[in-house]
């Protein structure tokens, strides 16, 4: 059962948010605090359909964060790879110093690599099955960003990719919480990511009041005792995660960084972990089928730390 006795408490010791209002935990929180503008015309997409303004990660460039130079990466995979590095750095961890079999990853993404899927499928539709792209195809799958992160950072512990609409990120946190609580691993990178694309925006309804956004947020989860032992700063305790067919807030509002689908729950968690909230219990999560995106609702409960 999910009791949070002293021997199996799980804490968040790092966060790697990438959002339109800021990149990295401090910049993201500062952006939210000062009301930085996070919504505007896309600088990256040629066609945003019915949406004149979106919450794009305008200042994000993967090469600013990545050591390796991949020849092809889907935008979603870029966000995940960089989110991992930001989160580990925020937690004071170097992935090369962690036992690779005790490092796991759990990622939620509602739409995965939709841009790469479009690139591959449009070729197939235009020219026939012989003219798809085998290289791009391997980057179209929803699990590709997780897999690429595993390869890049040598993650040999538990791994999972969750695709459950806007609750995807909550599914990822729930799995990671269980893995750490059950002693299966020392460190879990857990969070969510989704990228904007023309093909995604074409399917969303502007009448829903949604401001579509993109982003990622990976969190570092570890046992409380381990965090204490290594002198880590504790941002919050992850108390519980519930993803159900009917859970979640009934009154959905879009945050300043837009509705980021799979990233929305982890970004909400990150946004809540401020000094002002120290000691407070916070809840985050989407409603089922929120904004017309099919999937369950979720509720994540954290108790914010005071070690900011």
């Amino acid at each position: 059962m999910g009791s949070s006795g002293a021997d199996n408490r799980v804490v968040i010791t790092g966060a790697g948010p990438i959002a339109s209002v800021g990149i990295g935990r401090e910049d993201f929180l500062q952006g939210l605090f000062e009301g930085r503008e996070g919504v505007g015309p896309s600088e990256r997409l040629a066609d945003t359909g019915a949406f004149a303004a979106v919450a794009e990660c305008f200042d994000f460039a993967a090469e600013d964060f990545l050591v390796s130079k991949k020849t092809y990466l889907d935008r979603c995979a870029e966000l995940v790879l960089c989110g991992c590095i930001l989160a580990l750095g925020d937690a004071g961890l170097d992935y090369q110093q962690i036992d690779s079999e005790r490092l796991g990853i759990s990622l939620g993404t509602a739409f995965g690599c939709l841009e790469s899927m479009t690139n591959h499928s449009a070729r197939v539709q235009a020219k026939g099955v012989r003219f798809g792209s085998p290289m791009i195809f391997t980057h179209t799958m929803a699990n590709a960003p997780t897999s690429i992160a595993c390869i890049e950072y040598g993650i040999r512990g538990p791994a999972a990719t969750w695709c459950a609409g806007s609750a995807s990120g909550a599914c990822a946190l729930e799995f990671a919480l269980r893995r750490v609580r059950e002693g299966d691993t020392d460190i879990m990178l857990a969070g969510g990511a989704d990228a904007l694309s023309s093909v995604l925006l074409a399917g969303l309804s502007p009448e829903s009041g949604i401001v579509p956004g993109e982003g990622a947020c990976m969190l570092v989860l570890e046992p409380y005792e381990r965090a204490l032992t290594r002198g880590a700063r504790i941002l919050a305790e992850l108390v519980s995660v519930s993803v159900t067919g009917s859970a979640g807030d009934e009154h959905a509002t879009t945050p300043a960084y837009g509705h980021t689908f799979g990233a929305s729950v982890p970004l909400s968690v990150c946004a809540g972990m401020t000094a002002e909230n120290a000691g407070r219990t916070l809840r985050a999560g989407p409603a089922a089928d929120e904004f017309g995106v099919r999937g369950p609702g979720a509720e994540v409960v954290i108790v914010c730390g005071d070690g900011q």
Partner: protein
Amino acid sequence: MAQTQACRNRAVITGLGAVTCLGGGVEGLWEGLLAGRRGLSEFAKFDPTGLRNTLCGQVRDWTFTPAEFGLDQTPDEAAQFLLVAAAEAIADAGLSERLYSGAERRPEVGLSLASNFAGAVSWEQYLSSVLAKEPSPEQFAQFSFGNALSLCRDVFGAAGPASQLSMACASGTACIGLAAEMIRDGQAGVVIAGGYDSLAASPLSGLSLLRTITDDDLYPFSANRSGTLFGEGAGVLIVESLEHARARGARCYCELPGSWQNNNAYHLTAPDEGGAGMARVLAGALGKADVAPECVGHINAHGTGTEYHDVAETQAIKSVLGAAAYEATVVSIKGAVSHLMGAAGSVEGIVAALSVFHQLVPPTVNYGEPDPECDLDYVVDGRREQSIDYAASISAGIGGDNACIILGRAD
């Protein structure tokens, strides 16, 4: 610290449902496998010109009546497979009256679904509509991964814990393990667990161009193997707490004591040397189940018939089971039903559960020439009675994802 199994709920399988190219649900699958039948046929869903092979495990003579499920619209094809397999599993578990009777929301009923490509057919239609500058909101809703969760919630009233995995071809195995975790954690009394996928142009194009698809035939663990063949369908298992099942006098096929899922952290398409990732996933699942490797009497293998995979999986099994690997029966059902992508692990989990229940192993259908590097007991001469206390079902997928579940006799 790891929690002991003793103080937690035990998870058992009480219902099975399948849609495969063998037809006839679970009975057609099981009887077909025992008889060594193959369900593959020439591709008929769209023009296959340009694919390396036109043989596939497509579901034939398919009809779906939305009204039977209380639906106004016809859902995506893969979701249809899922709903039909789920209805069969629910009936098999003796839960039809409680789970299949309208719009009542049941918080004690969970969902653990998985797919590689989810609404792949609807995706093609949606993309066509976008490229034609007339985007279809209906097709957008149908292709998304979360769609099946919402459908199953509405059709079966499953309003409890919900999750949907996508771990390529390891998806269908991983979701069974996760369902058992929902039970062990006390989140739900019953979980509908299953993987589903349908054949569509874009995935087949990619799998053909990667040469994962053979231009010959699918020969699991054989010297003349040269690749796999793909198919479609769904496998659904009703996973229930032992207490819940006993209280209602349900038949238990087997217990699910543990599972594991990981990534090779090596390459997007190539297996790692010696099958190290698959060895870790098998060892991890045995560890979670608290089962000694030598207690495994049977393995339902991934066995795709690709050159590198089958030898890597054989090496992984031997590295974990040691000498006991040669005592276990190791079966691939892909020669009979093909590789069902996100549904593969769930359908194979069903077959593994039936093997444990009946203490009977179907043959590896379409086994070819012996390969000295694949030297385990692949049950090549017809069905076999086998004493099985514990079985393992292993899956692996593009991206290097692996999943393994352990199945034990239900006493």
